[in-house]
C-alpha cells in the first residue's frame, strides 16, 4: 500500500450456529438436503404460524460471549428487519437490533510477531434467509428455503484493523475460536462462516475515518485478503484521482478479483426495525452464565501457553498444534500413549502427519493413523528400535494399512542392529575397504566421515543406529 495512506477495517462475521434445529422452528438445519425439504410452515412464513426461540442457539451465543470476555445482556430483544425479497419468506428477518445478546468484548491477534487487541462491538442472534438460485431456471429464479431460519450469530468488530493481513488474522482467530467452542462447524464452503468487510482509507495521522464501503460475499481467508487489498487500492486511486469514495455496498467477484458496486446508500433499504411482538425478550440469568462458564473448554490462547510450558514445544509448533481443538486433543493423546514423547510427537504431527493430511485433503479427525498407532511408532523411535529414516518408511505403511508399528517393524525386519560386536565388524570392514576417505578424514576433512557412515549404513541395510555408527567410527579412526 501507498505509505501515505492508512486503511481502516472492521469485519462483520456471520457464524452459523451448530444447532440441530432452526432458531425459531423444529425443522432440521443439516446442509445439503433436496431444496425445500427442510422448511416447515414456520420457515415458509405461512399465515398464522409463530416463532419459538431455540434455547440451544441462546446457549451458544452466550458461550461465545463468555469466551471473548464480553458483556452478556441480561435482557436482549428480537427485532424485525423488514424488507421484501423472495428468499425472505415473512418479508422480514428476525434479528436483534438495539439490544443484542452479546455486548462489548475483544480478541487478541498476532501479525508478524506483534500482538494487537481487536474490539468486538457486539454479537447478535438472527435467522438466515433462504437461497435464490439463478442458474438452471431459464431466466427465472429458484428459491430454496432449506436455509431459511438457520441460526446465525453475527459478530461485529470495531474498526480496529489496519491491514488486510490483520483482518485475516482476526478472522482466522475467530474461526478457530468458534470451532473450539463447538458452536459452529466453521465450514466455509457450505457458508457456515461468512464475512462482510467495512473498508475505508484515510491519510496517515488523520483521526477521522474516511467514507467506508462494505464488501459482501467474501467467504474464504484468501478472498478476504485479496478483496480488502483490492478495495484499499481502489479507494486510494479514487481519492488520488480527485474523486470521492461513496458509501455503498460492493460485491466481491472472486473470478475477476474485483469488487463492484451493488447499491449505494441512497438505494439502501429502510429496514423499519421494531421489536418482534411474537417473541418475548430474552432474559439471561447469572446462573445460566455460571453454568455455561463452567463448561467452557480451554481456549486456544490458554492451550498454547500450556503447551509451551508443559511440553516444552517451540512457539511455532505450539501454535500449530492448538490451531484446532481436534488437533490439540490428538497431540495430547499421542503424547500420553507414547509415554510422554512430547517433542517427538510435536515434530511428527506438525511435520509428517499434517503434511500427509494436507496432501490427501483430510482433517485430523479423518487421519488414517490413529493416535495409538502413531504413539506406537514414536515409542520405537525413542527407544532406538528404529532410526528416524526407517520411521518414515514405517509411517507410510501405517498410513496405508492397519498394522501397528511393531508389526511392521517385525514383518519388514526393520529393527536396528543393537549388537555392538556385529556393528564393530562392519565398521572395521568399511575402514579397511576405503582408505581414501579415511585418509581425507584424518587430514581434517570432516565431510569424508559421511561417506564412511553411508557405506556402513548400506552394509547394515540401514538397520544400524547412525549416531552409534558415527561415534564408533570416530573412536576407531582417532583411536
Amino acid at each position, binding site marked *: 500500500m501507498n505509505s501515505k495512506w492508512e486503511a481502516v477495517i472492521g469485519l462483520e462475521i456471520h457464524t452459523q450456529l451448530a444447532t440441530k434445529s432452526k432458531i425459531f422452528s423444529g425443522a432440521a438445519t443439516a446442509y445439503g438436503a433436496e431444496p425445500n425439504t427442510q422448511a416447515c*410452515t414456520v420457515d415458509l412464513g*405461512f399465515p398464522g404460524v*409463530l416463532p419459538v426461540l431455540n434455547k440451544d442457539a441462546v446457549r451458544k451465543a452466550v458461550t461465545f460471549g463468555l469466551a471473548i470476555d464480553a458483556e452478556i445482556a441480561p435482557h436482549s430483544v428480537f427485532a424485525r428487519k423488514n424488507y421484501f425479497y423472495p428468499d425472505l419468506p*415473512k*418479508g422480514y428477518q428476525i434479528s436483534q437490533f438495539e439490544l443484542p445478546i452479546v455486548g462489548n468484548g475483544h480478541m487478541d491477534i498476532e501479525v508478524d510477531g506483534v500482538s494487537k487487541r481487536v474490539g468486538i462491538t457486539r454479537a447478535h442472534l438472527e435467522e438466515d434467509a433462504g437461497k435464490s438460485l439463478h442458474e438452471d431456471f431459464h431466466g427465472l429464479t429458484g428459491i430454496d428455503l432449506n436455509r431459511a431460519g438457520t441460526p446465525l450469530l453475527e459478530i461485529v468488530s470495531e474498526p480496529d484493523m489496519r491491514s488486510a493481513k490483520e483482518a485475516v488474522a482476526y478472522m482466522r482467530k475467530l474461526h478457530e475460536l468458534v470451532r473450539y467452542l463447538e458452536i459452529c462447524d466453521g465450514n466455509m464452503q457450505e457458508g457456515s462462516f461468512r464475512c462482510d468487510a467495512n473498508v475505508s482509507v484515510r491519510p496517515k495521522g488523520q483521526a477521522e475515518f474516511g467514507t467506508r464501503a462494505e464488501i459482501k460475499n467474501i467467504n474464504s481467508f484468501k478472498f478476504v485478503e485479496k478483496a480488502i487489498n483490492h478495495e484499499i487500492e481502489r479507494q486510494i486511486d479514487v481519492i488520488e484521482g480527485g474523486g470521492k469514495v461513496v458509501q455503498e455496498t460492493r460485491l466481491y467477484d472472486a473470478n475477476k478479483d474485483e469488487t463492484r458496486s451493488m447499491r449505494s446508500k441512497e438505494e439502501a433499504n*429502510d429496514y423499519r426495525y*421494531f421489536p418482534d*411482538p*411474537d417473541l*418475548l425478550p430474552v432474559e439471561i440469568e447469572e446462573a445460566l452464565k455460571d453454568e455455561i462458564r463452567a463448561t467452557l473448554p480451554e481456549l486456544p490462547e490458554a492451550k498454547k501457553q500450556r503447551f509451551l510450558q508443559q511440553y516444552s514445544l517451540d512457539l511455532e509448533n505450539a501454535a500449530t498444534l492448538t490451531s484446532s481443538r481436534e488437533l490439540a486433543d490428538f497431540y495430547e493423546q499421542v503424547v500420553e500413549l507414547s509415554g510422554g514423547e512430547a517433542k517427538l510427537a510435536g515434530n511428527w504431527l506438525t511435520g509428517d502427519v499434517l503434511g500427509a493430511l494436507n496432501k490427501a485433503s483430510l482433517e485430523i479427525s479423518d487421519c488414517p493413523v490413529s493416535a495409538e498407532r502413531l504413539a506406537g511408532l514414536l515409542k520405537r523411535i525413542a527407544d532406538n528400535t528404529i532410526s528416524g529414516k526407517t520411521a518414515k518408511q514405517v509411517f507410510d505403511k501405517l498410513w496405508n494399512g492397519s498394522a501397528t508399528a511393531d508389526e511392521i517393524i517385525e514383518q519388514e525386519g526393520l529393527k536396528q542392529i543393537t549388537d555392538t560386536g556385529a556393528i564393530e565388524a562392519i565398521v572395521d570392514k568399511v575402514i579397511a575397504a576405503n582408505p581414501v576417505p579415511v585418509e581425507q578424514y584424518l587430514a581434517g576433512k570432516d565431510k569424508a566421515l559421511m561417506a564412511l557412515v553411508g557405506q556402513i549404513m548400506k552394509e547394515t541395510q540401514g538397520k544400524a543406529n547412525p549416531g552409534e555408527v558415527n561415534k564408533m567410527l570416530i573412536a576407531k579412526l582417532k583411536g
Partner: protein
Amino acid sequence: MHNKTLSELAAGLRSKQFSSVELTQFFLARIKQHQHLNSFITVCDDLALAQAEVADKRLATADTAVLTGIPLAQKDIFCTLGSKTSCGSKMLDNFIAPYDATVIEKFNQAGAVMLGKLNMDEFAMGSSNETSYYGPVRNPWDTDCVPGGSSGGSAAAVAARLTPAATGTDTGGSIRQPAALCGITGLKPTYGRVSRYGMIAYASSLDQGGPMTRSAEDAALLMQVMAGFDPKDSTSVQQSVPDYSAGLNDSLKGLKIGLPKEFFSDELDSAIATEIQAAVAEYEKMGAEIKEVSMPNLKLAIPAYYVIASAECSSNLSRYDGVRFGYRCQNPQDLADLYTRSRGEAFGSEVKRRILMGTYALSAGYYDAYYLKAQQVRRLISDDFKRALSEVDVLMGPVSPSTAFRIGEKTDDPIQMYLEDIYTIAINLAGLPAMSIPAGFVDGKPVGLQVIGNYFSEAKLLNIGHRYQQVTDWHQQSPKGFA
C-alpha cells in the same frame, strides 16, 4: 332446538334426544335458510357431518368432553387443515391451510363439530364487517345494519341461532363490539390466555381469540377448551386454567365496580348511557358497590392503537407477496411487478390504509415520534388500568358509543369508524380481559355492557355476566325471524 344452551345440547346428545348428526344437519339447514345474512364464508357440510358421525360414536363411549358432538362455527381467521381459511381477504381466497390452529385442534380433540368458517373484516381490520372481500354481513336485528366487526360473521351467526356458539378474535374490540351490536355475549380473554398459533396475525401484541356465545354460561364452556399455555406461542402464558363454570353462581355481594368517568363522556349516546346505568343498578341490587374512577390517558388510546396495530400489521402482512401462497397477479413482468400487483390487486383499501400508516410510523426518522411514543402511551394506559383495578374489582361501561349503524353509513369516514372502538381499544393495549353482555335495547337494537377485569380474571367476569343473566333476559331475546 336452536335456542338450547350448550349444556342443554350436551344433555340432549347424551340422553339420545338427538344425535350429533341430526343436530349438525339442523344447523346446516338453518345456515342455508338464512344465507342472506352472509355470516359464513365457507360452510363445511361434508366435514361437519363426518365429524358429527365420529362424535356420535364417541358419545356412545365414556371418552367424551362437554362439547363432543356440538356444532360450532369458527371465525375465518383460524387456520383449519384442509378447508379454506381466507381471513376475509381476496389475498387468501385460494388458501387452504396445511395445519390446524391450536384453538381448532383443541375443539377437534373435544369432539366439537365445525359447521363452517365465519365472515369477518379483511384481516380483522374493521368495525363493521364491511371490509370483507366476501361482502358485508347483515345484522339479524336489522338487516340494513352492520353486525359490527371484525368478528361480524360470528356475532350475526350466534345472534341468528345459525350456530350454538362461535369463536372470534379481538385486537381492538373485534369480539366485544359485534357482540354488543348483535346482542350476544363475547369475551376477550387476557392477552396470552388463548394461543395465537394458527390465528392469522393482524397486530400480534394485541390479537386475542375468545368465545362468542349467547350466554356467559356457554362462554365458560368454550373458554374451558380454548384457554391454556401453548408451547407453539411464545406469548401465551404458562398459568393453570381454572374451572370457568365452577364459580358462575358465586355471590356478587361486596363486588367493587368502578365506573370510569371517561366512559360516560359526550361521545356516548345518551340512550345507551341510560341502559348501562340501569345494568349497573342491577348489580347494585345484587350487593355490589359502585365507585367512580378516572383514567386520564384513555383519550390517547385510539391514536396509540392505530400506530401500534398498523405498525405490526405492516410487517405481519409482508408475507403476502404472491410467492408461496395466496393471490398472485397474472403474468408478472419482474419481481417488483409481482409484489406490487399481487398486493395491490388482492388487498382491500382498509388493509392498504393500515399497511401504509404502519410503514410510515416505522420509517427512519418517524419511529421515535410515532411508534416509540405510542408504546409510551400504551404503558401510561396500562398504568391507568392498574391503578383503577387496585381500587375496584372490575370496571364497567359501554362497549360501543352507538348501536348498530346502517351498512355504508361510515365507510367513507375512517375516523368515524375508528371511533366505534373508543371504549374497547384501551383494554387491548393493556392486555386485560373484558366481556360484552347484552344489557338492553335502544330503538330495537341491542346494547352491550362492558365488564373489564384484572389479568386472568376471566372466571370472575363470567360469574359477573352469569349472575346478571340470571336476573335479566336480554340475552334470551332473539331477533325477529330467527326465534
